[in-house]
């Protein structure tokens, strides 16, 4: 499967805006699926609180961010034995085509997964056309 869905959109684009986080961030793995009436983005973003999730849609760009709370530094006697992940913010952005009804985008966060619902624009929804009798 191609990493970039090109069917309805342009090729990869680079963002020239200054909205990219300046500090180090993690790129959450995502599944993007298509249903009859919507697209769904599910992103693994464990370790953050629901109130620390920020989703923005601006000029055709969907940005998802998760802010990680700074870990408790009071435990000075902590000795790390093995580390495979760091407490860093999450960030990922997608260019969304005109196939989505931007006003109806919704999201929820639970069990470490962010789910974003992107309803299809009316023009893309399947429509049954009745054949009228003469």
């Amino acid at each position, binding site marked *: *499967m191609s*990493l*970039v*869905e*090109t*069917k*309805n*959109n*342009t*090729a*990869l*684009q*680079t*963002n020239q805006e200054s909205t*990219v*986080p300046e*500090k*180090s*961030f*993690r*790129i959450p*793995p*995502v*599944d*993007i*699926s*298509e*249903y009859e009436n919507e*697209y769904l983005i*599910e992103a*693994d*973003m*464990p*370790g*953050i*609180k629901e109130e620390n999730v920020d989703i923005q849609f601006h000029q055709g*760009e*969907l940005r998802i961010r998760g802010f990680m709370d700074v870990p408790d530094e009071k*435990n000075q*006697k*902590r*000795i*790390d*034995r*093995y*580390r*495979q*992940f*760091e407490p*860093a913010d999450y960030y990922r*952005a*997608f*260019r*969304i*085509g005109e196939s*989505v009804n931007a006003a109806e985008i919704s999201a929820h966060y639970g*069990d*470490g*997964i962010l789910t974003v619902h*992107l309803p299809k624009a009316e023009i893309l929804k399947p429509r049954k056309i009745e054949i009228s009798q003469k």
Partner: protein
Amino acid sequence: MYSELVYPYPFSRELFRRLNQFFSMPSLNESEGLFGSLSSGELATNVWEDEDAFYVEMEVPGIKPEEIDLSIIGTELQVKITGPHENESKNVRYLRRERTFGNTVRTITLPLDSAPKELDASIESGVLCVRLRKPEEAKVQKITVSPK
């Protein structure tokens, strides 16, 4: 439907990890001794200790407490996870799949001579936290130097 925006920076540790994972090379961080490599499908884990206990933190997004089975075998902690389960709906078409599914078993060997004393575990926002209290003999014994 979309295209993804790609940024040349910052060159985060996570990016290193994902690149290493992709090319199946040992983690560059391994040379530092502290950072382990992560093979595909493996759940990211941190292990640390203080005076009283060992702490295991494992990223388990989408996993319910009842899908986790923890057991102590000697000085090893075994974490068995049944899930997360794939969406089996026939009305779905995947445009991108990066998340990991399926059952996992992970065994963590603790640097102890005898089994840990107590274990308690919790899940918060997709992170499993296990605390294993050290047996008395494994704790650091403080000796006070008294003046003559």
